């Protein structure tokens, strides 16, 4: 019973709610950022890149903490440097993954070194890895909203060409879409989005915000407008819901956020499996209608080799 009351506690809830008002706003803004960028992260096959960027963002923030600089600036610098390195050096998926795998432990190590040398409040240290709620002050909220606005506006402007070049780079390039420039712009935007997410959910758990909601939405639909809307709703529900549950107890916010976002994904996954089955039936039906000619190759998705 003791554990349960630590995990869920709603004593003096009203007063606490006022105290963490900033965090709730920050969470909602982050949800929008994560929900909108998530479908691109999935379509470009970049979840691992998000993880790598977040570790360097952590290194930047830890260094800032150690040297008494602004933590937000530190995490932004770390993220953007990581994102640009990954974008410039790893245009192909295979190169990209090894570069991330090289950068990530280095960033994490650097961050741990800085934290070990830091003599300040321990909560600050831990928060960078696992998230924090009470520490969002007004200037921090302002910078978070400004950076998030830059991310969202940029995404909306480049939305169509970015989606085209994400799902079909060759055809997009043939149609004159500046595929390479867009890839770099996207990495920059992803760096910014990661840096602001690290502030709240912590470096280790950024994926639950930038990937899980989009992955869940994609299990339900492929509609190009419904996917980002759903994933934004999922992300906002996860973060804001996580904060609302977390404020009563003395625990970090991240387990709440990650659990809600995971549960949403599980439900979507189950519903999506039925959708897939219906889809396969429909394909089979259409192929049947198409005529009774022999199949000579197993190149088709159904893999029917006659």
């Amino acid at each position: 019973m003791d554990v349960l009351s630590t995990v869920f506690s709603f004593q003096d809830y009203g007063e606490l709610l006022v105290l963490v008002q900033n965090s709730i706003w920050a969470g909602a803004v982050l949800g929008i950022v994560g929900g909108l960028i998530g479908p691109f992260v999935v379509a470009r096959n970049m979840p691992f890149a998000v993880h790598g960027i977040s570790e360097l963002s952590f290194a930047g923030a830890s260094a800032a903490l150690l040297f008494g600089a602004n933590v937000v600036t530190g995490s932004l610098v770390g993220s953007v440097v990581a994102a640009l390195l990954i974008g410039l050096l790893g245009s192909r998926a295979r190169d990209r993954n090894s570069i991330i795998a090289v950068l990530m432990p280095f960033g994490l190590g650097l961050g741990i070194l800085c934290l070990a040398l830091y003599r300040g409040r321990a909560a600050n240290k831990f928060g960078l890895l696992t998230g924090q709620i009470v520490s969002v002050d007004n200037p921090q909220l302002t910078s978070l909203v400004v950076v998030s606005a830059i991310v969202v506006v940029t995404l909306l402007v480049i939305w169509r060409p970015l989606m085209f070049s994400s799902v079909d780079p060759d055809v997009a390039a043939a149609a004159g879409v500046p595929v390479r420039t867009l890839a770099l712009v996207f990495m920059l935007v992803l760096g910014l989005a990661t840096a602001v997410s690290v502030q709240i959910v912590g470096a280790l758990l950024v994926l639950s915000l930038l990937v899980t909601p989009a992955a869940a939405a994609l299990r339900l639909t492929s509609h190009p407008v419904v996917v980002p809307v759903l994933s934004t709703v999922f992300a906002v529900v996860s973060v804001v819901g996580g904060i609302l549950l977390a404020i009563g107890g003395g625990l970090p916010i991240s387990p709440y956020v990650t659990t809600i976002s995971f549960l949403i994904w599980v439900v979507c996954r189950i519903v999506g499996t039925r959708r897939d089955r219906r889809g396969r039936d429909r394909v089979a039906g259409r192929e049947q209608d198409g005529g009774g000619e022999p199949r000579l190759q197993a190149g088709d998705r159904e893999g029917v080799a006659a």
Partner: protein
Amino acid sequence: MTTVQAPSRTAAADGRGGPAVLALRDAALSYGSRALWSHLDLDVAPGEFVAVLGPNGAGKTSLLRTVLGQQRLTSGTMSFLGQPVRRGHRRIGYIPQQRLMESGTPLRARDMIAQGVTGSRWGVLPASRAERARIDRILDEVGATAFADAPVAELSGGEQQRTRVGQAIAADPALLLCDEPLISLDLRHQRGVTELIDRQRRQQGASVLFVTHDVNPILDVVDRVLYIAGGRFRIGTPDEVLRAEVLSDLYGTPVDVVRTMGRIVIVGGNEAHDQVGGHHCDPDPHAPTPDEGRI
């Protein structure tokens, strides 16, 4: 580098008038010291269907890349609709090799065709009423209406490739560049996709430059063949180019061309691989023998 010109019917002689859609003059492309082809003169007339054949690495796909403006000619000139080629021309449609869309792609068949109309546009303003009507019309034209709202990742390979044709013709191209679009499709879908491309050039007058390792699925619709091998090439009708003495000369080694059951089979080198329909798998794709040159 010498070139061998087979006497060729020009497209104009076929009764298709108009200035060339695509014109190459003394064009050459090389990577470092390796020349892919040189002294290439080619006029593709409106509505003409030109197949580009040859072994792997002969420079077929590179030719398409130069037309797309993604690769510069080493020398010579290339013009499209009377202008020097440039990147991302609206009137060029591109149909790539089939690459199955992964699940988790947030697109339906309808959206993929929409990309052909609005895909390179900035901002998120929705497509206009006229554009949506056009997308519906294209869906119908390529027989994709039945699966218009299905996720692309759910479509069969053939359905995806029909959708790609729709995407490529959505902007009313003057030239369709096809890079092995039939690869890994079954016979029925090969025929279906070929018919779609053929119909587009007959009804809309689009020219077609069609890179393939297997000419058989498109043999009925091809006007001329550009056969590239070993840095040299031949241009002419299939009957003029796909002959034993022509290809033997091109490869510099004896090659036989067998016509059987309405199909063309090339047999070359000492190992005499049979190449029916390109279904054959070469044990060593890098062996510099002519039997790589599947027709």
